[in-house]
């Protein structure tokens, strides 16, 4: 952390400009935050992004549709399967492909497990942001179990390339049902344990309660989505309000916070893991037999047109806008990343808080820089 002294335009007193990042362990990637402080209070913050810009959207224009799935893996690199699903849904909507039932169920099961893994990562890293080292070990232990299952199904722990246009890559292994049930058993206990360990801890409460408050209306105005919006008391979940895939068949709740502070944003995610477990339980009990992929050509040429789909990724409302000119490569791919929109509200949330809470508020939004910069 470098510290410069300069005269600020915001007050008569001499303020400090604190430069946090880009190489800072608590920024969850390469993210630079310039903070002007008056004493210990934050006067103004200025986020700088673009350090991880890889031009994914532009690369998409020179790749075939089947190859783009690998690029979407690398946007939100802890919620890979949800990203793959968003792109595949967009192409399927454009080509009017009907995905077989079994593939839909496999997709939902894996996506929800992916959501749990992502929230477990958040849980661990958020503990670290607050200053507690132990939760990280618990969070990663549970996440490891999910990734082990992913490895046995998709062959990779992170960049799966498993959800394909028209279905999934290959059928799940024979012991998949059994393994998922064992995993769910572990996860149920794991989530409870994580909850008991941190959620009601006195020091954790003292640091997160009432910090970085954003009201529901403001959150909506800023375009905040996902758990960060639901923590402010707005009931908005694409899986329920605008169901995609087969989410309308499952019975699950939307955890909603009341204050919109850091603790609510944290606890909404913990509760969401429990709801995801419910979805996986229902899906695994009535997964049908059958094909795992619709008949699609190896080189896909969708008709001329444009399409927009939105899905609920672990971080919020992930939108994919796709324009096709009839060739085997898309004319334009635009991603509406939830992290990017949620980051807009950071300036508002950090206003008039203490500088020690900057890391805390940033962590509670759960940004992934790969998705912000694309």
């Amino acid at each position, binding site marked *: 952390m470098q510290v410069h002294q300069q005269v600020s335009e915001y007050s008569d007193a001499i303020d400090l400009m604190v430069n946090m990042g880009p190489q800072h362990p608590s920024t969850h990637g390469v993210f630079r935050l310039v903070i002007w402080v008056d004493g210990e209070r934050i006067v103004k913050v200025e986020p700088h992004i673009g350090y991880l810009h890889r031009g994914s959207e532009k690369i998409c224009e020179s*790749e*075939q549709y*089947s*190859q783009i799935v*690998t*690029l979407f893996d690398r946007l939100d690199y802890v919620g890979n399967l949800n990203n793959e699903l968003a792109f595949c849904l967009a192409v399927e909507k454009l080509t009017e492909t009907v995905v077989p039932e079994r593939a839909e169920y496999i997709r939902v099961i894996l996506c929800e497990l992916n959501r749990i893994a992502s929230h477990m990562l958040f849980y661990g890293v958020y503990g670290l942001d607050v200053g507690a080292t*132990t939760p990280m070990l*618990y969070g990663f*232990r549970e996440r*490891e179990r999910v990734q*082990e299952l992913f*490895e*046995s*199904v*998709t*062959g*990779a722990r992170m*960049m799966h*390339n498993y959800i394909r246009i028209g279905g999934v*890559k290959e059928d799940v*292994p024979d012991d998949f049902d059994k393994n998922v049930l064992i995993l769910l058993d572990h996860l149920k206990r794991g989530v409870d*344990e994580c909850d*008991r*360990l*941190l*959620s*009601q*801890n*006195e020091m954790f*409460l003292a640091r997160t309660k009432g910090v970085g408050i954003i009201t529901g209306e403001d959150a909506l105005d800023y375009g905040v989505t996902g758990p960060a919006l639901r923590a402010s008391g707005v009931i908005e979940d694409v899986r329920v309000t605008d169901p995609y895939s087969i989410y309308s068949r499952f019975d699950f709740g939307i955890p909603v*916070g*009341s204050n919109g502070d850091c603790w*609510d944003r944290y*606890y909404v995610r913990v*509760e969401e893991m429990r709801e995801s477990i419910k979805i996986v339980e229902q899906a695994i009990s009535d997964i049908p037999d059958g094909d795992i992929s619709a008949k699609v050509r*190896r080189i896909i040429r969708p008709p001329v047109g444009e399409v927009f789909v939105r899905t609920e990724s672990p971080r919020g409302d992930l939108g994919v806008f796709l324009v096709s000119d009839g060739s085997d490569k898309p004319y334009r791919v635009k991603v509406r990343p939830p992290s990017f929109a949620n980051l807009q509200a950071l300036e508002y949330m950090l206003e008039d808080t203490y500088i020690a809470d900057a890391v805390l508020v940033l962590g509670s939004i759960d940004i992934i820089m790969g998705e912000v910069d694309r």
Partner: protein
Amino acid sequence: MKIQNPVVGFINGLMVTIRSTLRRPVTAEYPAIEKRLPLSNRFMGFPALTWDYDIEEPYCTGCMVCVRECPTQCMSAQMKDNPQHEKGLSRRRKIIESFEINLGRCILCGICVDVCNFDAIEMSHEYELSKYQRNANRVNLNQLLDMGVVYQNKLQWTPKQPQKNSGIPLPPKQSEDSS
């Protein structure tokens, strides 16, 4: 989401810690070979070329479909006429002459395996990338075949389409001089 008495929360957290001190550790010490976690059968490591044990030559015919479909263009290949075919010992008219994969560029997506028509390329169980030389990640045909042989032996690999992709020459109606 109600808040309990903070002291209760603290003690609950302490109980979790105490309980998990009694458990076995879940971590594994990585570099020690005998302590590594087992890989699942579907694990996707770096791509490797498979070896046809029936007639002792690679399955790959150098058709270049994987080279074209690779999202990162990490491969290059060349084909040649198969001398074994002229002698009537193999069904493959063309065979791979040279094959190079830059493993540093490979993103392990498995697309090359999906598009291969000859069961010639498989995602092996090799996953370690550190090398002593600068360009040692560029592997040639022999190294790829070695990786493939290790993988085949480990998993008792068999081709997905044995009828179509076997190299054993077809019975006499096509070539009479093969016995």
